């Protein structure tokens, strides 16, 4: 519902006659411009375009919730229906950010309630959301349709009771990977009997059992349900009943796949899966036995995304499964498949574009056996020339292998290699793995995201600074030899937006080299480096439009800046910072 604009003065009317066509049409045309980056560009063309763009924008993406305030947002964009907000720095996923750091959604919701009463969608990542906020949300926005919470915290499953009860037009409830209080599964039973609009339901990461009858009835009456991802408590037998009611699913996340089935149950499930002709994404399969794994084969013909990261498959099992999925473009596995499994991937998945290999035992420091190595990596690259996204956890790697991989797959956009033991050298030559990442940046001009690991000197960063012209996100841990490393990156990488560093020997000199850069970046994170409070204060002094925040830990040296978070903001310093966050 567009609010009316004030009438233009005669001078302005005259000015507007210069325009080839009236604003209304411009706004209409701009309505087709969806990408927020494009919209940003549009808004910079001229004042009129800026105005037209802001009136016609319905979706806003805010990559750092502290870069702007809700008041500024609603002032600029009056007609927003959909908001995407990201909060904490990414390293909070790995417990590097203390609890109660901030990124609370509530202040935003209060402003939205008055400015955007017709808000429909809210997608949050790494934000703190309380049950009270969820209740406020459910009761303040009558048109509310889609709620997505990824890696958020602060709420319990009780919060969903209110959502289920009050959001009559809800189409999407997507809860992933959150650190929340599991207060039981009764929230699912709160959807009223006349509620039929659900299209997306994802509660795979919740631990408690939901009432299966309530779930079944919900699935039955929601004929538009396209995405259903249940949690581990849903058995295979129960899954079968859900599947027969929803053959129209495009994305399915199964519950536990370990049940021992009778012949009849097995046959029923086979039939159910055969009916899922439109499935393109499959996940879950936790604790899948070899026998049960076979059940999904009939549903795999059109599968483009197979997420086996919860199913500790062996190589042979994967090898048997993959030929049934010829169209696979994205594959996530656990490293239990080992190199043999990856060879099968190289063999059976010619269209593969994205591969993620997660470690089964990431904290098993003594695990030298098992897992994947450089051999599996090379094997995949040989068979999958279209591979452009990789996340690979391993315990050993060689420079030569990585060079081979990027030679086979020069189109990498996302290269995230995690050699799990810090400072691990090339296991054959015992040299640093500088040349590996050098090969990546030299060979892959489209590289946008890079995560480095292993034994690395400043040379790696020299390569990165020099060659990675399109790099936007760089993650560094336990790497580098001196300030020069970070300086190389800050002196190169023209498109750098996010830089996150931990446990590296970069200090004030390096931090201050980036003075000119940080305003064109979203954020910088440095923890357990050699930066001091004085260095941070200097940065804050010279760059007043940056927020320079230091997270102080209990009992640490008072001059040492344990964790530094620097980001640009038009909203000024945080007003809600907890005592352990010092804004300089």
């Amino acid at each position, binding site marked *: 519902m567009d609010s009316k604009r004030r009438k233009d003065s005669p001078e302005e009317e005259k000015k507007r006659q210069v325009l080839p066509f009236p604003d209304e049409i411009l706004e209409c045309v701009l309505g087709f411009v969806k990408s927020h980056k494009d919209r940003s560009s549009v808004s910079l063309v001229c004042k009129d375009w800026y105005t037209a763009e802001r009136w016609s924008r319905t979706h806003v993406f805010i990559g750092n919730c502290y870069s702007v305030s809700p008041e500024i947002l609603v002032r600029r964009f009056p007609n927003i229906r959909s908001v995407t907000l990201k909060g904490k720095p990414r390293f909070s996923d790995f417990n590097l950010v203390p609890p109660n750091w901030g990124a609370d959604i509530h202040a935003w919701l209060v402003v939205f309630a008055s400015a955007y009463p017709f808000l429909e969608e809210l997608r949050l990542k790494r934000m703190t959301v309380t049950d009270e906020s969820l209740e406020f949300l459910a009761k303040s926005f009558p048109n509310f349709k889609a709620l997505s919470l990824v890696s958020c915290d602060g709420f319990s499953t009780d919060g969903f009771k209110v959502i289920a009860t009050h959001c009559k037009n809800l189409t999407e409830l997507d809860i992933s990977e959150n650190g929340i209080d599991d207060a039981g599964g009764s929230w699912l039973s709160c959807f009223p009997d006349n509620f039929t609009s659900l299209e997306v339901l994802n509660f795979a990461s919740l631990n408690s059992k939901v009432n299966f009858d309530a779930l079944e009835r919900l699935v039955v009456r929601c004929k538009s349900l396209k995405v259903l991802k249940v949690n581990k408590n849903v058995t295979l037998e129960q899954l079968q009943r859900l599947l027969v009611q929803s053959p129209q699913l495009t994305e399915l996340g199964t519950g536990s796949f370990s049940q021992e089935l009778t012949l009849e149950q097995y046959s029923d499930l086979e039939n159910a899966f055969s009916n899922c002709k439109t499935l393109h994404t499959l996940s879950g399969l936790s604790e899948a036995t070899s026998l049960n794994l076979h059940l999904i084969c009939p549903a795999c013909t059109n599968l483009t995304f197979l997420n086996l990261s919860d199913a500790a498959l062996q190589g042979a099992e994967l090898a048997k499964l993959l030929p049934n999925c010829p169209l696979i473009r994205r594959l996530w596995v656990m490293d239990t498949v080992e190199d043999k499994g990856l060879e099968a991937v190289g063999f059976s998945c010619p269209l593969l574009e994205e591969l993620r290999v997660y470690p089964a035992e990431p904290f098993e420091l003594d695990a030298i056996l098992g897992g994947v190595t450089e051999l599996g990596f090379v094997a995949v690259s040989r068979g999958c020339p279209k591979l452009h996204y990789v996340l690979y956890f391993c315990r050993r790697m060689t420079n030569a292998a990585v060079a081979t991989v990027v030679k086979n797959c020069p189109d990498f956009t996302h290269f995230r290699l995690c050699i799990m033991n810090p400072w691990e050298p090339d296991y054959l030559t015992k040299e640093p793995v500088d040349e590996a990442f050098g090969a990546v940046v030299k060979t892959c001009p489209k590289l946008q995201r890079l995560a480095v690991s292993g034994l690395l000197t400043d040379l790696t960063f020299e390569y990165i600074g020099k060659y990675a012209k399109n790099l936007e996100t760089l993650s560094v841990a336990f790497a580098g*030899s001196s300030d020069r490393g970070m300086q190389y990156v800050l002196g190169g990488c023209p498109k750098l937006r996010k830089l996150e560093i931990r446990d590296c020997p970069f200090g004030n000199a390096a931090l201050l080299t980036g003075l000119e850069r940080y305003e064109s970046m979203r954020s910088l994170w440095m923890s357990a480096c*050699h930066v001091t409070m004085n260095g941070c204060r200097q940065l804050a002094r010279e760059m007043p439009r940056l927020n320079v925040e230091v997270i102080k830990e209990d009992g640490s040296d008072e001059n040492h800046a344990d964790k530094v978070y620097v980001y640009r903001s038009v909203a000024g310093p945080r007003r809600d910072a907890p005592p352990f966050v010092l804004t300089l």
Partner: protein
Amino acid sequence: MSRPLEHDYIGLSEVSSMESSEKISSASSTVSTEEEKSNALNLKETELRLGLPGSESPERKSGAGVGVSLLGRTVEDKNGYSLGVLKNFVSGAKRGFSDAIDVSGKWVFSGNGGSEVDMGKGAVLFSPRGVNGVKSLGVLENANQQPGSAAPALKDVVPPSPKPVQDKKPQMPAANDHVAPAAKAQVVGWPPIRSFRKNTMAVNPAKNNDDDEGKSGSACLYVKVSMDGAPYLRKVDLKTYGSYKELSAALEKMFSCFTIGQCGSHGVPGRDGLSESRLMDLLHGSEYVLTYEDKDGDWMLVGDVPWEMFTDSCRRLRIMKGSEAIGLAPRAMEKCKNRN
């Protein structure tokens, strides 16, 4: 053992034979700057302390190879490669257990903490503090020979802490020793795996290569014990204890060296005065919770089920921070109900 080591790492001459020469030049230039800047001997600053990587003293000027804190890393430089790090690390660092504790409250690595931990390939959380730069070997050697004397002449060198240094086993093998990786260290938040994945990694026992976990019925019942923030895991034989109390006491003793650091925030002096009861407070209070992973792969709070049932089903133990243990209690209750 450590003296030749110091030669290797502190002597800039060795570094000059390295390929990455820019490191050296920047190192030496920064070193001279630091020398100029530091006038008086600052004892606190030059005190050698251990802490997590990066937890250096404030005044340390950055860069210049005062770098990545892992010492063990550069030990293996067969090709003569050495990270800038050890150039500046002054090891006079035969420190006893008590000296290895950083008053600042960080947990520290103890070479003597009851287990044989070699500085092998693993990441050990070491960082030399207050290392301003390296002047000369001679000065260094003086420092090492007289641990207690902080002569004013030692401008930039790090004398070991004034406390009596108990020479225990060297914490770094010599440069050319290829030390077999023993119990390696666990670093907070590394590898970068989201916590929701930690618990789903309950590998099917039938497929588990790691056989010595949770073997029941035989003479011993070893389970791994990990503690959030501690550098390495321990193993305990559950059969040697008869009750939760015994297990708890044993764990407290075993992990006391790690929790001492945490006491800093409670106002307890880091070294002295740490009593068992204080530790129990820590373990039983809000800071830490003792949990275990059972046969089904679920994480439960320790103490809810009868002892025998516990030893039957426990596969591994974990001392986790209270904040992470949210949601465990209800599950434990539910499970108990289901079992009874």
